[in-house]
């Protein structure tokens, strides 16, 4: 309903002070770029130290996550269960390293916790779980996130609340049939408070997505399912921001962002190589990669 959208827009602005995403001191693009670089370094460090993780897909999703968490989403790190928060679901749960790094940087949990990533009795497992503050739902089995996001968006609509729900999927994940069950339902219920982002890096664990199971043409598929679709460069911070500032793309329809990305983005020898889906760099590769990401910035954990 248009009146409700207008009301929600006002509500979002009115309460903006306590809302992270709508703070007056919005980050400049150059600051976002710094955050993206720092997040990539943290991803690399987490995986190197744990000796495990999914580096390729974590790196392709970093810029989307940075714009979401430093610019778009409204939340209160000191009150993770705040009922009016925007919800974020990382449906491609294996890309959790960047997610954890950002949640720590935003103050959901102490930075020191990052050192426990995938360590015995540590809080941070190789896939997200809601016991980690800021995580809404457990993911890791692909194809689940969009259904849960649809339920959250539907609950928001039924309660006339102004929050939005953002869900990040991989393009390989789209082979899961349950994704399309959710896509159908979200359009059926006109959930314009739901945003789905696809980290479309074109590669999955056994090779190019086009060869493993072609999920293209994405835009035509999602449009046919009733979504309003935009295709963007998933590493262009300005483009990501500009498009996410225009949610909903159309009143009464869920919004879909196809973000063209590069698997392993930021580390030259990992880029566009599916072997880096979950390969762990050795010490020499780690040093080279860190150098490419320009050393250690202030406030980060040392290697």
């Amino acid at each position, binding site marked *: 309903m248009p009146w409700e959208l207008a009301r929600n827009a006002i509500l979002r602005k009115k309460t903006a002070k306590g809302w992270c995403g709508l703070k007056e001191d919005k980050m400049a693009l150059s600051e976002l770029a710094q955050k993206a670089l720092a997040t990539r370094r943290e991803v690399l460090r987490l995986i190197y130290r744990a000796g495990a993780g999914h580096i390729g897909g974590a790196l392709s999703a970093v810029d989307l996550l940075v714009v979401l968490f430093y610019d778009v989403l409204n939340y209160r790190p000191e009150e993770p269960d705040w*009922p009016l928060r925007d*919800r974020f679901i990382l449906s491609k749960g294996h890309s959790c390293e960047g997610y954890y790094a950002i949640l720590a940087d935003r103050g959901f949990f102490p930075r020191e916790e990052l050192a426990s990533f995938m360590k015995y009795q540590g809080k941070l497992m190789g896939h997200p*779980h*809601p016991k980690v503050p800021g995580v*809404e*739902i*457990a*993911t*890791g*089995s692909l*194809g*689940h996130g*969009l*259904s*849960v*996001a*649809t*339920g*959250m*968006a*539907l*609950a*928001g609509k*039924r*309660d006339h609340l102004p929050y939005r729900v953002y869900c990040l999927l991989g393009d390989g994940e789209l082979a899961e*049939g*349950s994704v399309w*069950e*959710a896509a*159908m*339902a979200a359009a*059926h219920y006109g959930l314009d408070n739901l945003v789905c982002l696809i980290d479309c890096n074109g590669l999955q664990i056994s090779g190019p997505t086009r060869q493993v199971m072609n999920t293209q043409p994405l835009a035509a598929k999602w449009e046919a399912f009733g979504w309003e679709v935009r295709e963007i460069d998933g590493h262009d911070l300005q483009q990501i921001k500009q498009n996410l500032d225009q949610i909903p793309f159309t009143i009464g329809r869920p919004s879909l962002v196809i973000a063209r990305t590069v698997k392993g983005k930021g580390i030259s020898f990992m880029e566009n190589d599916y072997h880096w889906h979950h390969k762990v760099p050795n010490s020499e590769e780690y040093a080279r990669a860190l150098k490419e990401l320009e050393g250690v910035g202030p406030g980060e954990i040392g290697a």
Partner: protein
Amino acid sequence: MERPNRRVFTETLLTLAKNDRRIIALASDSRGSATLNEFAAELPEQFVEVGIAEQNLVGIAAGMAKCGKIPFACSPACFLSMRSVEQIKTDVAYSGANVRLIGISGGVSYGALGSTHHSLQDLAVMQAIPGITVILPADNRETAMLTRQLVDYPGPVYMRLGRETAPRVYADDFQPEIGKGTLLLPGDDLTIVATGELVRSALDAGYLLRQAGIAGRVVALNTLKPLDTEIILTAARETGALLTVEEHSIYGGVGSRVAQLLGECCPVPLTIAGFPDEPLVTGNQEELFRHYALDAAGLAEKAKGLLRRKQATRR
């Protein structure tokens, strides 16, 4: 007048939902089988139809639960418990979403429609998932009372209901409690431990045994998990032989749970009455119960055989 438990469940839910906006009923094109048409018509804002998509049904329910709703996801037990089991494991149980999974027309309710529509593995699957409470009411009163308790019950729940008229078991002042078994008939020769809508047959079997001069104790379990271990172990110690009864495969249901408990704490002769590990013959629910000796007469015969075993071991 007795009615199907699924009908009693939806009527109770509608009454509760009228005064509690948190309650949401979800269906997967299962309005008819779950008898949710009235609910959908009266409370459209508290009803969600997802179409024939059980995975999505459970995922959406989990999302709504995480936003403060109390979702009752109602779908045939055969599909709900198997098609969406991974969503139940991950989105509901592992994520701690307080979803109420209502398995409609459970067991062999659908009778001659065949094995695709039977849910004879649901208890095995559900009770193996950490954090899920598994409930099987016996009659109309118990269904209504447990449905009320479910609203504010902590954690996810799977409740299985039958399709056909459920014969009365309990008196009008009976107060069921989740996780607590009920002694229906005293006796010291052996104990029949029954769940769900076979409780009535077990009780009738108890009366048949009495006529044959055997003091069969009858215990009803409305909850498979958490299991009322006290009532079972007391029965094992006092009667020395147990016959478990369930509308489920002989593997992984109440019989398996009881066997595990007895093996660890109090080994006594045990007979597990359920459906065999094979495709079933064609038949309606009543015919299937009779064919597999799960009706009162069949259970009484199994009990007599068990008693002979008990006496043989004691000699």
